[in-house]
């Protein structure tokens, strides 16, 4: 073997090696920034591995699993029954891991005297059945309902959880981004909207929400969401094929480690394991 051969094979090895070992993660755009952050931290301690993270939506990620174009699928919703059927048809199995939780806060203008609403009231408001704040115990003022665009995962989740899969009213105001919702709610007296917990700030007022007809209300915070008192919470999942367990387990266990969960909290999500209620309270305090 002369030097040229040696060089070519060496070059080929460099080109091929990382691709063969790279882990592919695909799916939900909600989870995308978090997973990128986790991957970066993971690679700091595992410099010889490679991880490729791409978005596209939960459905895209889950559809890519049986086609073997991804190793881990990120999903901001649970795998659908119809998707599970597809896996079953191919004789495949799928494992799910919850990496974090995401809570949605229902916010109103700070001048609004209403503090709490039940799920039924929220459904009526977002479906246009209740149009004045005085019907839910507020001032005589028209309710202006803000929502996200249909392309957003938040839109789908809110529809599923609060509206029980019914449609929003057609005259709902849809905003292109969470920032726009905050800005509009801040400057509109009768406004109501929903945003991710991480976006809460002092310009908008979060509402306490009850899913049991008004017996228990809870304000949104990392603590109440983690303890299960706050109801509008969705788990964020990683899905993978159990046959690939050996390849993906290292990254997933890093994501679930205290270090990984630290960045979950930094990215504005709720960690899977809260060590103690005292810690949760401390986190709430430091947030304010």
């Amino acid at each position, binding site marked *: 073997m002369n030097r040229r051969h040696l060089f070519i094979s060496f070059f080929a090895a460099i080109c091929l090696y990382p691709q063969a070992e790279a882990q592919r993660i695909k799916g939900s755009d909600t989870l995308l920034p978090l997973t990128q952050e986790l991957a970066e931290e993971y690679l700091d301690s595992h410099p010889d591995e490679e991880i490729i993270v791409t978005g596209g939506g939960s459905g895209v990620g889950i559809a890519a699993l049986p086609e073997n174009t991804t190793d881990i699928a990120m999903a901001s919703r649970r795998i659908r*029954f*119809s998707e599970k*059927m597809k896996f079953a048809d191919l004789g495949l199995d799928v494992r799910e891991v919850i990496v974090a939780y995401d809570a949605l806060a229902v916010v109103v203008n700070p001048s609004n005297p209403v503090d709490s609403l039940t799920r039924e009231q929220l459904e009526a408001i977002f479906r246009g059945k209740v149009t004045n704040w005085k019907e839910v115990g507020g001032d005589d003022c*028209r309710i202006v309902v803000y929502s996200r665009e249909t392309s957003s995962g938040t839109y789908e989740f809110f529809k599923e959880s609060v509206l029980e*899969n019914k449609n929003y009213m057609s*005259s709902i105001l849809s905003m292109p981004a969470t920032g726009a919702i905050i800005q509009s709610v801040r*400057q*509109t007296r009768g406004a109501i909207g929903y945003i991710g917990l991480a976006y809460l700030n002092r310009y908008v007022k979060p509402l306490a929400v009850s899913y049991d007809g008004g017996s228990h209300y809870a304000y949104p915070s990392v603590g109440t969401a983690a303890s299960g008192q706050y109801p509008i919470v969705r788990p964020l999942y990683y899905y993978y094929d159990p046959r690939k367990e050996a390849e993906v387990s290292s990254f997933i266990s890093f994501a679930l480690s205290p270090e990984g969960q630290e960045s979950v909290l930094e990215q504005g999500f709720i960690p899977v394991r809260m060590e103690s209620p005292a810690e949760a309270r401390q986190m709430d305090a430091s947030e304010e």
Partner: protein
Amino acid sequence: MKRVLEHAVRWLLTASGFVTSAVILLIIGFLFTEGAGLFREHVIEEGYVLALNRDNPVKEMSAAEIKAVFDEDIVSWKDLGWKDIPVETFRLEDIGRYFTEAELGPQYEHAGSAIAGLVSSHPGMIAFVPESMIPQEAGLNFIEDSTISFSEVIAGPEWFPTATPAPLFGMWPLLAGTLWVSLFAILIALPFGISIAVYMAEVASEKVRNFLKPVIELLNGIPSVVYGFFGLIVIVPMLQRVFGLPVGESGLAGSLVLAIMALPTIVTVAEDAMRNCPRSLREASLALGATKWQTISKVVIPSSMSGIASGVVLGIGRAVGETMAVLMVTGNAAVVPTTILEPLRTIPATIAAELGEAPAGGAHYQSLFLLGVILFFITFFINLCVEFISSRGKVRNS
């Protein structure tokens, strides 16, 4: 050598002309083929059926009725032409409520027959399930699935492109919103634009004009998202205070932003037209004893009317196609507007906001392309108007 070079240049020019035209035609063709696909799609989501109990005689339901049923707005079969039995809806996601995993089998092989049994035992049930799951001999009735109709799309009053089981693609609110917001934009921009143009062409001194013209043209260079941001932070709260509106995001906010954006086009084109007014006309008018104002209003403006009109129409074209600024300030509520002080949704804003997540090749995706086709026809018509107006002007002036 020189001749070869000349030949080469000529070929290059011809080729670039043809390639550009071909690309434009290809883009339009692509738009049309994608958009037309919508009318081949079925009302009910691909691969799914709406299964009914055997006793249920209902055969046909429109997309709007299907949505009302699954939204629990229609709660009795009486409204759909059967007897007074409450409607029970069933989606595949609800299966956990009726059956355990064990009953469905490890590979869900019993799911189909379980659902068929469930529907058979509930007379008022309507089930939204994959076609392949229902066994052949189940003895259920199905809602007949038709393709999406043209009139339902163009004149339909509701835009719910992601509703399941049956999305609604009523484009009338979007079309009306686009035209409505552009109309008001041009009503606002027109007086301002013309007066600025007259001022710059006839009244202002050379020094002032040299300062004003670049400033107004600078407005053209501001990215539209910046206008949108300005509109959301400044114009929206201002309108809310001035008119005492419950909600500031409105057609008027969009019209104001669009008017500001259309101004430079109107001003530049109209001013150029006025300055190109033949010197002989002007001097003849002054020689007849007309004052400066009489000359401007009776001679200069009428003679440059075609130029002014093309400026206005180009401004409308800009307003109709504007996306980002409108997306941020109009509130994007898909309702047919009745006043300009209510939120509305325009076609470009809809395409921009929804194309990102619409699955490629699906009905939603195709409906967005169809919206693109409609927008294309609007701007095409506007451009034809410009051509017509300016060609008429040329004939008269010569």
